[in-house]
């Protein structure tokens, strides 16, 4: 297991990065949907951050009302397709399935969800129409899951919405940061197009908000502003040798891989530093690109914040874990990276593990510059935006959700909270 040849073509890339939750066939979906018990007050619903009525949409699939199923999903979650593929369903809906309490396999809820939504997307079924204009305008900074979810909900209620996206593609980490074996770029973009056609929000790409003037203009032209800017670059470890060539941040690497696929260069041996889900993704991806991968984490395997199944996945494609080691220096010779000096957090022994690349998956920085530029937005000690239950910030014109608030959660959490923020905006602007 786990021996991958470096992919030389798009075909080989998609083989190495085969979808771990492939689209179900009509037959597969029919049989799988037949197994759902239609639990009362179903625990899967309660485990879903967006509260999708899962037993209902599964029953709709089973009675061959796939578009109705898609509507049930989208009514709660505008990223229904993407979430079906990228959600950690093992610890959310599927993890809560009552079949886990006996020896029956949990319902494949994620795959059923993508099945239903794929029907609506591929048939371009119009489910929603924006309400009559209500006269209010909202700017959304950041076209990621939180921002787009917020925009859809606002458009549904008649707000005029403009999204300002710094990159040239929408959906944030869904297209730039999720592992390619979870969802393809085309799948992500198809869903966003589908939403855009129905909700008719405007997205301005490559539109980075950088200067005070941009902010003044936004504040002048819009009644409310939603911040869904996510996180920034990978944070510095502040150890020696970090500035050597071939030392990368995990999010930067994943983005490069997602955009360049088989054309991404990859060396023979990579060390990934970190124990979170991003570290597991980076390790899996390097392995599938044909590299030999070492995952180095400073605490024990049991203490890793990554989900067990993510570690198992990385292991299954060949990544090797080294635990209880902390990086003390990135070692180079003549300015060229040669390895990482690791120190045991148990006995203090130090040793050098050789490698050609180091990928740091040790957390991302917060985009505090922009927030400071806006002004009057309170942040917590870690730089996360503080919001109230309506996702309103201390600067009353601004609302926020997604990773900039949470510090880094799943797509589904951003989608859920972006939508709640839209309700918050609505409440503020139409408060009696």
């Amino acid at each position, binding site marked *: 297991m786990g021996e991958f040849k470096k992919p030389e073509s798009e075909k080989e890339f998609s083989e190495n990065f085969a979808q771990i939750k492939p689209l179900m066939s009509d037959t597969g979906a*029919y*049989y799988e949907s*037949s*197994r759902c*018990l*239609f*639990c*009362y*007050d*179903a*625990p899967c*619903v309660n485990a879903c951050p967006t*509260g999708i*009525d899962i037993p*209902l949409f599964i029953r709709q699939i*089973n009675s061959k009302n796939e578009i109705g199923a898609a509507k049930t999903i989208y009514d709660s979650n505008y990223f229904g397709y993407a979430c079906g593929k990228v959600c950690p369903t093992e610890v959310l809906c599927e993890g809560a399935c*009552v*079949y886990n*309490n*006996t020896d029956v396999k949990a319902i494949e809820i994620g795959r059923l969800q993508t099945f239903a939504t794929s029907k609506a997307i591929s048939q371009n079924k119009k489910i929603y129409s924006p309400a009559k204009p209500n006269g209010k305008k909202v700017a959304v900074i950041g076209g990621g899951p939180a921002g787009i979810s917020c925009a859809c909900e606002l458009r549904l209620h008649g707000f005029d919405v403009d999204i300002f996206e710094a990159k040239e593609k929408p959906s944030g980490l869904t297209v730039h940061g999720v592992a390619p074996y979870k969802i393809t770029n085309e799948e992500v973009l198809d869903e966003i197009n589908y939403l855009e056609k129905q909700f008719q929000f405007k997205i301005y790409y490559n539109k980075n908000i950088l200067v005070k003037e941009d902010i003044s203009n936004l504040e002048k032209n819009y009644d409310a502003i939603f911040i869904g800017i996510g996180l920034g670059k990978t944070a510095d470890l502040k150890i020696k040798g970090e500035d050597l060539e071939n030392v990368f941040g995990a999010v930067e690497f994943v983005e490069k891989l997602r955009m360049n696929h088989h054309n991404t260069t990859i060396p023979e041996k990579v060390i990934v530093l970190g124990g979170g889900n991003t570290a597991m993704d980076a390790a899996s991806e390097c392995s599938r690109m044909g590299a030999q991968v070492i995952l180095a984490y400073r605490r024990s395997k049991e203490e890793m914040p990554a989900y067990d199944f993510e570690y198992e996945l990385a292991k299954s494609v060949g990544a090797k874990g080294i635990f209880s080691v902390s990086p003390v220096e990135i070692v180079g010779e003549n300015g060229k990276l040669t390895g990482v000096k690791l120190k045991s957090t148990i006995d203090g022994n130090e040793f050098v593990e050789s490698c050609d690349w180091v990928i740091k998956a040790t957390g991302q920085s917060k985009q505090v510059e922009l927030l400071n530029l806006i002004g009057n937005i309170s942040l917590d000690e870690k730089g996360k935006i503080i919001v109230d239950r309506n996702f309103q910030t201390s600067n009353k014109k601004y609302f926020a959700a997604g990773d900039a608030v949470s510090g880094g959660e799943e797509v589904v959490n951003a989608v859920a909270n972006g939508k709640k923020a839209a309700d918050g905006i609505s409440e503020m602007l139409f408060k009696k």
Partner: protein
Amino acid sequence: MADLKTNLAGIKSPNPFWLASAPPTNSGYQIMKAFDAGWGGAVWKTLGVPVVNVSSRYGSLNYRNTRMMGFSNIELITDRPLRDNLREIEEVKKRFPNHAVIASLMVETKEEWHQIMRDVTNAGADGVELNFGCPHGMCERGMGSAVGQEPKVLKTIVSWVKEVATIPVIVKLTPNISDITRPAVAAVEGGGDAISLINTIQSIIGVDIDNFVPYPVVDGKSTNGGYCGPVVKPIAMNMLKNCAQHPQVKIPISGIGGIENWRDAVEFILLGATSVQVCTAVMHYGFGIIREMIAGLEQYMDEKGFRTLDDFRGKALQNILHWEDLNLKYKVVASINEDKCIGCQLCYTACEDGAHQAIGLSDDVLNRKPHIIEENCVGCNLCSVVCPVEGCITMERRDSGNESLTWKNRTLAGTVPKTFDDELAGGLHHWVPEPADALTKKKPRHYGAVAAD
């Protein structure tokens, strides 16, 4: 070792498993193949004046991922010339002398009945089955169920057949009638040697909701069909019981209707069947299902100590009483095995919405296991039948077991309710919630808002 040998009114077969008269018995090829696989007998696809069939003949009732829970057909009797069928009957009998070959027959006039009786007897058939059951196509021509629905006509035709019969005559009955015992008694009175039931039930199996036409579709149109398959088994068994318990029906019965495994066969035999006939299951899975049926039946008989089929035939009949003779003192209540419960709460919602509000949920949202509110439980079994877990909800006996009081006893004693507001009403002291409590009852957050008034 169990002996499966069967003798129905003189028709002998190595086991009670016969193929019913239907598409699987259309030809000597199929019947030889079935006998080779282990089937004990076969009722030939109904012989008569050959028909012309339509294309597109079957429709299926699927339940979730189960195909052909119910099955409907609009095919008629044989469309092959009688001479071909007779030649093949002869060939099959020559090769399988100890297996039962029964010729199903459907013709109109007395002369035709006499002629075809002589023909199939000469071909070597072990018996005949008179098809008075077919509920589609043939009945409109005065045959099939049109006969089965008119006991007098049925009796007359049976007596015509018996005038010339030298082999046993089975009369196949239609279920498309309110009292199955009337044609059964007529069959006896006409001199029939056995009856078989049920034939198919008139049905519309489904409707194509895009084109507004029922299945099976024949050039944009359809017609009613004959319904069979696992779903009709309960109806068949009730009719079997009605005939088997009837004092005037002393002739043997061949049971038909939804049989597909050994358990089904045992149930039919316990209700009085001598042989059982199978069609839909073979049309679904092929002749190979016989392996499971024979092995299961043998195993069951060995475990129960039954040597022959007669040892348990009709054994359940004595336990089927009229409702008025059931013991009103008997009391069971549901019991949930917490170790097995997986927390789906189907029992809760079933009892809450479909029965007597006798199951409660914990106030602790993390505890999904429901509990029985015993004082509200009427012992209806609903929770135990909806529970998806084997052996999780059981019904526990609560009465002493020493008392018996039936409706009939109470009627004789004058202690049954007689007026609309009678104090003796069975549910008088049974707790029911106030109607408006329904609107304030806690419900899952995704169930949506209460309808506005």
